[in-house]
Each structure stands twice: as structure tokens, then as C-alpha cells.
């Protein structure tokens, strides 16, 4: 049993024990088993990662079990470890372990804890299967496994209709992406006669320029394959068009959002593109599409993020936008930068989500930032952690030096690479800088609305409820931990006048230690991860060495070029970051009437953004409603109205009617029979004469 097998299968074992043991096992043992397993996995993962950073480890594949073979098709359960896997291993196990720990505090009042922890561990197992996959089928197994876990966790509070609806939406929208992924696997197998990733990547350059028939037309083979696989990546990583499930996924408990919908699962698409990067390199068209889709998502999500009021939704759109950065980085060929942003983003975004969870915990499940304010002094550790996260995501740092937070290294590298790459990269560069401005604005807006200004708690129903409970009979809760998102951001509420100022006598409490420790650890990551690891991930020489034992197509020339970009390019992310900060400061701290004035003036634009570009409405009109209407039509008009009516029922009726007619002929009168005989005879004679 090598350590990689332990890393991957311990979480599965823990999930089975906690899940099947459930209530019989009890809360504490379930928590201990799952959290313990994850910390062991995490402790085993870091040495592997560090050995790759040190440059003294090669790729290896550990076989587990034969899986599926049919003709020349072979797929095995096997665990691949290389530099790329190692990065994902530490991201997944570290964030997962911390989220497990955090959930001890966050889910304290939840009666169904064993189930929750079992799902979390199950998710981790599936994610690890995904990142250790050595063939496309196992990757798909992990892909669907994380989808299942995500579905279960979004719908964890299954009594809430909005949660179960969001869970289905997440699963079904992801399936649209999976359709592309599956067809991509079919096509890849058809072309390469194997689904083993290293074999495909080795053979891919040889297929560049060939053509294939697809849906009746002929296309460039590699473009078709890459784009089909990319559709899968778009689904899982919530790229524009298939992003609609991600904001709704915030119905799940906040630790879930941190783990699945920020740090790990949603980055699976980026991981896939990087894992298969030599394949994408063979098709310029595919790379251009990746770039444009990434850039478009990046901008779209950032614009929506500026108007949301639910703290978790702001961060959700921020995640979506950051994923866009990663994709266009991959699209321009800067896979190292994409993976680096994935790596740093995992830390600071998990931090922001867990911080948000801590705020929500303190504010008695209120998620609407309009009812926050002045929390800086009340929950100082959360405040400092969130600030660290915000400094990291907005990319604070001094260009040209090594002083900067994690996001500074990764995001600036992406923006510079895009510029250096030219072509579609130039477009991506412009979008990336614009989005950086918006990122800075919405991130600081979140901090200012939450931690600064005057307390606006009195207007919150949750706070009123809490205060009432405290005065009344103690611990009377309906569903203690259920979060209540999305209720306040309907357009009708958008123009509500400024919330009531006042604390309503409520005293927020800082979260317990089990929740603060993960915040602190992640804060360290958000501050230092960029500085510590930038050499290995994105440095032209260091990166080439680090990524060599992996399938990632590291481009040293591009990374060189990205260091040589003009000075204004280097400073532009800094400038827009500062601008966003200043605007947020002016609008939310100095002149707090600005936002209201702005929304009143540009209400069409504001509504457009607040309603997320009306994607949900559009899809509902285009797909959901027609699916039900057509289904009903097929059922009532097709099956019952046509097939049954003219088929079995029609035949039955015909037999009855025919019987009625023939019964009439059997009249019993001799003269009728004689007449018929005569007519028949005449006809027969006529025929005989005319024929001969």
C-alpha cells in the first residue's frame, strides 16, 4: 500500500463508515473518522508535492484494479502521480481537511452531522480519483463522482425547496457538459484507439491537421475532440453558458461552497485542460475558443458580482470570474500560470468563503450584506482573515518586486502572459484588466459593507428572530443551521430604501476556535503561497523543471516573454486594482448615497446585472418550459392521441365496427343471399370474358 493509495482511499473508507454508520455511529465518531482520514491524507500529500517542487520525483502510475475492457478498449483503475497531480493533491486534501475541521463548529447545531461529513469525505475521494486519473474514463468517474457529491451537498438541507431545486439544476446543467465530455471520449477513442492519457498525448501531435466527419460535416480532428472535451470543462467549471448552476449552488452549507464550489470541484475543468494541454496545443482554434470563453466568463461574472447583495453570491460570481482567468490563461498557452492561479485561488477563495461563513454564523444566518456593517470590532479575527483574502484576490503587490499577496503573483502572470501571447490573448488581456478593476471593486465593496460603516442589523429578520429568541424561550429554532439565501435579491427588493440603522440589541460573537484555525491557516496561504511557490509554477526555468514530470505543456518562451512585457502592462493590474479600491471606498464608506443614486440613474443596467443578465429566465423559457410542454404533448397527443388511438384502440374499434357490419349481412333472408350470389356470378363471368 503506497501512500497515494492511502491518500485516495482513506476518505472513501471514512465516508462509508460515517455514511452507513450514520446515527447509530453518533456525531463525534463520524466527525473524528472523516476529519482524521482527511488530515492523514493531507499529511501524506504535502511530502509528495514538495518532492516535486524540489525536483526529485518523476511521474508514476500505481495500478489498483482492472476495470473495463471491450475489444481494444481498456480502462483500469489506476492512480497517476505527477507534478500536476501533486499540485491538485495538496489543494484538495488541504482545503478539504480544513473544511472538515471548520464544519465541526459551523455545523454544530445540525442534527444530521454524520451524513454531512460522509458526503464531504465522499466528495474528496471522488475529486482525488479525478486528479489521479491516468485514463479519460477514470477522470470521468471522478468527474461524475464530484457531481454526485455536489448534488448531495447542495441538497443537504433537503427540506428547503430551493435547495433541492438548486441540487437538480447543478446536476442537470453539469450533465450538459458531460454530454460533450462523453462524446469527446468516444471521439478520442475512435481516433487514437486508446483512452490512456499519456498515450493520447503522445499521439496527438501526429493527428494535427487530419480531418474527421462529425455530424455530417468534416472538421479538423483535434479541434473537434478538444472542443467536445472543453464543453465538459465548461460545465464543471461554470463557464459562460453553463454557469447558471454555480450561484444557485450556494444553497448548500457554506463549508461546502468553500470546498466544492470555490477551491476544488469547479477547478476540475481547468485541471482537465492543463492535463490534456498537449492535445489542446494541436488545435489553434480550440485554444482560441478556450481563450474567448474564459475571457467572456471572466468579465460577465465580474459585472454580476458588483451588484449582488447576498455575501455568498458575490463570492460565487467572483469564483466564476476567477475561473475565467484560469481558462484564458490556458487558452493563451500559459498553463503554468493557470495552474498557479488555481493553486492560489484555492487558498484565498476558500478563505473568503469560510470567512463569509464565519460572518453568517455571527449574524445568525443573515446573508444579506445590506444588513451587515460595523462588524470589524465584533469579529476581529474573521475581519483580518477576510481582509487577507481580499488583498490576495485583488492582487495587491508591487510590480517588479516580490512583495505581494498570492493573487498578485498568479493573476498578474496571467494578464502579462495574455498580453505577451498576442492574438486572442490581446483581447483576453483587455478583458482581464477590466475584470481586475471590477474584482477589486466588488471585493472591497463586500469588505466595506460587512465590516465598516454603521451597524444595519436591525432590519434583518434573522437578527430580529435571534434577539426575540434570546429574550423569549431560549433555543427555539426551526432549522437551526439552514441558510437563507436568495430571498432578498429579487428585483422587487432592489429599490428598497436604505435598511434600518441600528443593532437591535444584537451582539455578534466571534466563531469558535475550530472555525478560526482554518481561517488562520488559509490566511497564511493567501499571504504567502504566491511568494513561496511562484518559482516552481511560473518561472521560465523553474517552471520548466517543475512541470517536466507531468503532462502539462509548459511554455518557457511565453513565460519569458511575459516577464519582458512593457512597464505599463505590468502596472495596469495594479492601477485598476487601486482604482477599484478607491471607487469602493468612496461609494461605500464616504458617500454612501452614491450606490442608490447610481442604481436610480442606470436602473436598466442595474437590473440587467442584478438579474445576472437574465440567463435563468432565458433558459427557463428556452429549455425548461418547452421540455415539459413537449413532454406533455408527446404523451397526450402522441402516445394517447395517435399511437393508442389508431393502434390498439383503433384496431379494437375497427373489429367491433367490422363485426357490426358483417352481422348485418347475415340477415337470414334467402333472397339477399341469392342476390349476392347472382351479383358475384355476374362479376365472375364478366371477368372471365374480358380477360380471355
Amino acid at each position, binding site marked *: 500500500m503506497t501512500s497515494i493509495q492511502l491518500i485516495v482511499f482513506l476518505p472513501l473508507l471514512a465516508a462509508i463508515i460515517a455514511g452507513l454508520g*450514520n446515527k447509530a455511529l453518533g456525531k463525534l465518531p463520524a466527525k473524528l473518522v472523516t476529519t482524521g482520514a482527511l488530515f492523514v491524507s493531507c499529511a501524506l500529500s504535502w511530502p509528495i508535492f514538495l518532492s516535486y517542487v524540489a525536483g526529485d520525483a518523476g*511521474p*508514476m502510475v500505481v495500478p489498483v484494479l*482492472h*476495470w*473495463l*475492457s*471491450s*475489444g481494444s*478498449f481498456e480502462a483500469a483503475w489506476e492512480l497517476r502521480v*505527477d507534478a500536476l497531480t501533486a499540485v491538485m493533491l495538496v489543494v484538495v486534501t488541504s482545503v478539504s481537511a480544513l473544511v472538515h475541521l471548520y464544519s465541526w463548529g459551523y455545523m454544530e447545531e445540525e442534527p444530521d452531522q454524520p451524513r454531512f461529513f460522509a458526503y464531504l469525505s465522499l466528495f474528496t475521494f471522488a475529486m482525488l480519483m479525478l486528479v489521479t486519473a491516468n485514463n479519460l*474514463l477514470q477522470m470521468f*468517474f471522478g468527474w*461524475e463522482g464530484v457531481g*454526485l457529491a455536489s448534488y448531495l451537498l447542495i*441538497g443537504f438541507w*433537503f*427540506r428547503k425547496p430551493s435547495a433541492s431545486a438548486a441540487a*437538480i439544476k447543478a*446536476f*442537470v446543467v453539469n450533465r450538459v457538459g*458531460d*454530454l460533450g465530455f*462523453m*462524446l469527446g471520449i*468516444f*471521439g478520442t477513442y*475512435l*481516433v487514437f484507439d486508446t483512452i490512456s492519457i*499519456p498515450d493520447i*498525448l*503522445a499521439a496527438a*501531435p501526429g493527428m*494535427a*491537421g*487530419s*480531418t*474527421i*466527419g462529425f455530424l455530417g460535416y468534416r472538421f479538423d*480532428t483535434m479541434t473537434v475532440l478538444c472542443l467536445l472535451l472543453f464543453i465538459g470543462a465548461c460545465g464543471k467549471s461554470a463557464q459562460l453558458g453553463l454557469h447558471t448552476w454555480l450561484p444557485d449552488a450556494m444553497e448548500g452549507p457554506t463549508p461546502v461552497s468553500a470546498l466544492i464550489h470555490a477551491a476544488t470541484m469547479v477547478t476540475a475543468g481547468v485541471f482537465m485542460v492543463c492535463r490534456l494541454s*498537449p492535445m489542446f*496545443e494541436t488545435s489553434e482554434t480550440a485554444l482560441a475558443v478556450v481563450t474567448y470563453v474564459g475571457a467572456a466568463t471572466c468579465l460577465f461574472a465580474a459585472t454580476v458580482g458588483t451588484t449582488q447583495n447576498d455575501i455568498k453570491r458575490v463570492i460565487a460570481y467572483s469564483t466564476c470570474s476567477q475561473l475565467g482567468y484560469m481558462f484564458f490563461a490556458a487558452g*493563451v498557452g500559459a498553463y503554468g500560470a493557470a495552474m498557479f492561479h488555481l493553486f492560489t485561488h484555492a487558498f484565498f477563495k476558500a478563505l473568503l468563503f469560510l470567512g463569509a461563513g464565519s460572518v453568517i454564523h455571527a449574524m445568525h444566518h443573515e446573508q444579506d450584506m445590506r444588513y451587515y456593517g460595523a462588524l470589524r470590532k465584533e469579529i476581529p479575527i474573521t475581519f483580518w482573515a477576510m481582509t487577507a483574502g481580499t488583498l490576495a484576490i485583488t492582487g495587491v503587490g508591487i510590480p517588479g518586486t516580490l512583495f505581494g499577496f498570492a493573487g498578485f503573483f498568479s493573476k498578474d502572470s496571467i494578464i502579462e502572459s495574455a498580453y505577451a*501571447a*498576442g492574438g486572442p490573448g490581446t483581447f483576453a488581456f483587455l478583458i482581464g484588466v477590466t475584470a481586475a478593476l471590477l474584482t477589486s471593486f466588488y471585493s472591497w465593496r463586500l469588505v466595506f459593507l460587512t465590516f465598516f460603516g454603521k451597524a444595519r442589523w436591525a432590519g434583518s429578520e434573522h437578527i430580529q428572530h435571534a434577539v426575540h429568541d434570546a429574550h423569549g424561550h431560549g433555543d427555539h429554532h426551526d432549522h437551526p443551521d439552514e441558510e437563507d439565501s436568495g430571498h432578498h435579491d429579487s428585483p422587487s427588493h432592489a429599490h428598497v430604501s436604505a435598511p434600518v440603522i441600528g443593532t437591535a440589541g444584537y451582539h455578534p460573537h466571534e466563531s469558535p476556535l475550530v472555525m478560526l484555525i482554518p481561517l488562520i491557516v488559509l490566511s497564511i496561504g493567501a499571504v504567502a503561497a504566491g511568494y513561496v511557490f511562484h518559482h516552481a509554477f511560473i518561472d521560465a526555468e523553474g517552471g520548466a523543471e517543475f512541470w517536466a514530470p507531468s*503532462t502539462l*505543456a*509548459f*511554455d*518557457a518562451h*511565453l513565460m519569458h516573454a511575459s516577464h519582458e512585457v512593457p512597464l505599463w502592462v505590468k502596472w495596469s493590474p495594479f492601477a485598476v486594482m487601486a482604482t477599484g479600491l478607491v471607487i469602493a471606498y468612496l461609494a461605500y464608506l464616504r458617500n454612501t448615497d452614491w450606490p442608490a443614486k447610481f442604481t436610480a440613474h442606470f436602473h436598466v443596467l442595474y437590473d440587467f446585472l442584478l438579474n445576472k443578465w437574465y440567463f435563468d429566465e432565458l433558459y427557463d423559457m428556452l429549455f425548461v418550459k418547452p*421540455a*415539459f410542454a413537449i*413532454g406533455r404533448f*408527446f*404523451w397526450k397527443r*402522441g*402516445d394517447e392521441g395517435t*399511437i393508442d388511438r389508431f393502434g*390498439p384502440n383503433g384496431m379494437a374499434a375497427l373489429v367491433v365496427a367490422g363485426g357490426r357490419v358483417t352481422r348485418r349481412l347475415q340477415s337470414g333472408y334467402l333472397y339477399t343471399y341469392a342476390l349476392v350470389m347472382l351479383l358475384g356470378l355476374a362479376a365472375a363471368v364478366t371477368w372471365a370474358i374480358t380477360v380471355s
Partner: protein
Amino acid sequence: MNELGFPILSFMMAVPMVGAAACLFSGASTARTIALIATLVDFALGILLWLSFDQGAGHAQWQFQEYAPIFGRFAWAMGIDGIALTLIALTVFLMPICILASWDSIEKRVGEYMAAFLFMETLMIGVFAAQDLFLFYIFFEAGLIPMYLIIGIWGGVNRIYASYKFFLYTLLGSVLMLIAMLWMAREAGSTDIPTLMAYNFDPQVQTWLWLAFFASFAVKMPMWPVHTWLPDAHVQAPTAGSVILAGVLLKMGGYGFIRFSLPMFPEASAQFAWLVFALSMVAVVYTSLVALVQSDMKKLIAYSSVAHMAIVTVGLFAFNQAGIEGAMMVMLGHGLVSGALFLCVGVIYDRLHTREIDRYGGLSINMPKYALLFMLFTMASVGLPGTSNFVGEFLSLMGVYEASSWVALVCTTGIILGAAYMLYLYRRICFGDQKNADAAAMPDLTARELVMLVPIGLSVLWMGVYPESFLSPMRGDVQALVARIAPAKPEGDAKLTAGKPQPAAAHGAHEGGHEGEEKHATAGEAH
């Protein structure tokens, strides 16, 4: 005779037959016990059959053969290959579960009911084991009778309509098949199925023979548009009847295609592949959308069966190993999963006596074990990797992609629609708040119900994680079939061209093309 020293196939058919006779003459509780013992004995014999089936390289295609002439060319000829073996195993595995499912819910005419089920088992094994054309026909058609009785006597309110519809629909196609069989026996001078499988019929005649067989198998399958008997039959049938109907009877159509249409009429099969593809594509989309709007649980699952069976037919007519093996795996997986889903419906139907989805809700709260198992089967039905249905769906869709990317695309939409209707069903039954006091008061699974559902759940996972156990007995037979139909195989639509040789400078400066290539080479070696 065979390796075991006794005619195991005949024995497996005789055990339930004797049990059936005994059930007819005994009281309710004795009949239940007799039926359970008989089916368990048959299950044990099934395990013995599987274990003694030679799967080694170069094994005989037909094993456990028995031959006893009756009169003329007509003979009691039995024998199985790997394909039949897996389907027999499915049958004997599901039967004891069906008996358990009927334990309490059937109260009237228990002896007759159990006898009908046991008789059914005899006939189903007979269908898969028969090696004589007419023997097959007799078993194939006689299977209608017990099912007709089960629906018509122990069924729901509208059972008479459903049972007649079922009977007439399925009989209609069979008449044409009988005519074709008579012609074939005269032409080939033999009624031996293995002989006929190797006989080359004139391609022109094949067309007509193929169509005659198709009429029968398409109804049994069922394929769109001759599927409308299935929802009615399922809705009206008692739980165990639905399980056997979905689990085994629907597989007879697919088995027919594998055993008759493809090997006996390869040219005609290739010629009509477009027809099968077209009907299947319609079926996947059409019946999935219909399933989405159902308010009756059983009807929903019945429609989903039609969609899944369409994946079987496209896989079969893909003319390649992956497609046919995938189709077999879908049949086995669907047999387990849809059977289990009907059992899940039966569990709550027994408690509340309604199939209306809206009467339930929030069952996760009061029936957590049920919710867990139902989730497992829902996910299996959706085709989640790691469960039985994924293996089958994946292989058969991959097979058909080689034949036509259009068919693959349209049929793969089934995974989206399937997720939509199954999760929507699950949500309405298990999620949400408890709406009705009577549904909220339902107790969780009893020991008997757990004994029914857990083994199916484990098998579903086994088939998903290590499908090799199920693929290996049939591999040789599918290879033989693929070799048999290979000359007629239609060309796929991919028509891949060779890659152009790559000049080193073809990549833009930013792409670093050959650096990448070197790296792949090392990665490839590492593998």
C-alpha cells in the same frame, strides 16, 4: 451430457415447474414457502451453472448441451453460451426477490399467483436456453400467458384493458416471426439454432425474414412507436410483475436481436440499421420527455425503460464489440436497476396504496434507509460511473459513435434527460418537507424489504466497479458474433484522415510545440 453429470438446464426448468404444481394445491402460506424454496434452489443452481461455465480461452461456444428428439425435426435441444448464461443468471437472481416482494402484498389466490410466477421462471430459462427454433418459439410465446394472468388477475383497477393490450400487442408481432421461422426451417433444413446462426440466407430473403423477426422483437423490446403497451402493463401489474416484466421479459427482445436478427441476417441488419437508429433516437428523446411529465411513479419508470432499451438497440446495431457488449451490459444493468426501482415503488405503494408522486414527499426524514437505497438506484438509472448502467451505456454509445456521430449525439442526450426526470422524481418523493401526515408516518424498510433491495444494490455496484466478471463470460461469444457480421458492417461517418506531417515551425512562437512533444514522449514512457 455435460461437465456436471446431470442435465442442469432441464433441471433448472423442472424445479420451478414442480414448485408451481405444488403451489396450485396448497394454502397461502405453504405456497409462499414453496415458491421461495423453489426459486432459491434455482438461484443456487444458477450459481453452480455460472461457476462451472468454462470461460477460459478457446472454450466451447455452446456448453451444457442437451439433446432429446421428440418427433420429426422437433427436439428438446438445450444449451447456453455466455450471453444466455448472464441472462439466465439475471432471471434466477430476480425471482426469489419477486417472491419476497409478493409476500404480504398478494392476499388472494396466493397459490395460483405463486404457480404463475414459477411457471414464468421455467419459461424464461427456456427462452434463453433453447437451441431449437420452435422450442424457443414456444417458450417465447408461452411466457405471455402467466404474465397475462398476473396482470389480469392480480393487477390494478384497469387491469383487464392492460392485460389485453399487452397480450395482443406482443402476440401480433410473434405471428409474423412464426411464419419466418417455418420458412427458415424448410430452407435451411434444420431447426437447430447454432446451425441457423451460421447459415447464409439469400440477402433478398433476409430482408423479409429480418422484418418478420423485427416485428416481434421490436414490440417485446419495446421500441418506439410500439411501446405503449408497456406503461399500461407496468402500471396495472403487481410490483413483482413489474419487476419481472422490466427485469427479464424486456430482455427477450434484445436477446432475440443478438441470437437471431444479427447472426442469421447480417446483411439485412446492416441494411435496416438506419431504421433501428431512427426509431431509437426518437425513443430516447420522446420517451424521456414523456417521463418528465408523469405524475404516476410506475409510468415514469416504465417510460424510462423505453428510453434505456433504445440505448440497447443502437448498441446492438453498431456492429462492433463495444456496442454489443455495451448493449448486453445495459440489459443486465437495467434488469437490476429498473427492477429495484419498481421494488422501491412497491415498498411505498404497500404502505400508502397510491402511485401518485405528489402524495409523497420528505421521505428522507422518516425513511432514511429507503432514501439511501432509492438514491443508489436513481443514480444507477441516471448512469453514474461506478454503477452498472454506466458501463453499459458508455460502451454502447461509444460503439455507436463509430457508426454515426449523429446517433451518438442524440442518444447521449438521454443522460441529460435521464438525470432530469429521475432526480425530479427523487426530489418529489424523498426531498422537501413532509406534506401528508400519512406519508410522514410510514415506517422505514423492514428486514424483508432490506433483504430484497440490498443484494440488488450490491450487484449494481459490483457491475459498475468490476464489470469484468460479467463481460468475461460473454466476450468470446460477442467476438464470434462480431466476426460473423463483420462482412456486412456499414461504414462509419468519421472517415478519419491521416495527420499532416508536422513542420517544426508550424506552431506560433507562443505555443512551444515541440517542447510539448518531447514532454509527451517522456510521459508516454512513464506509462
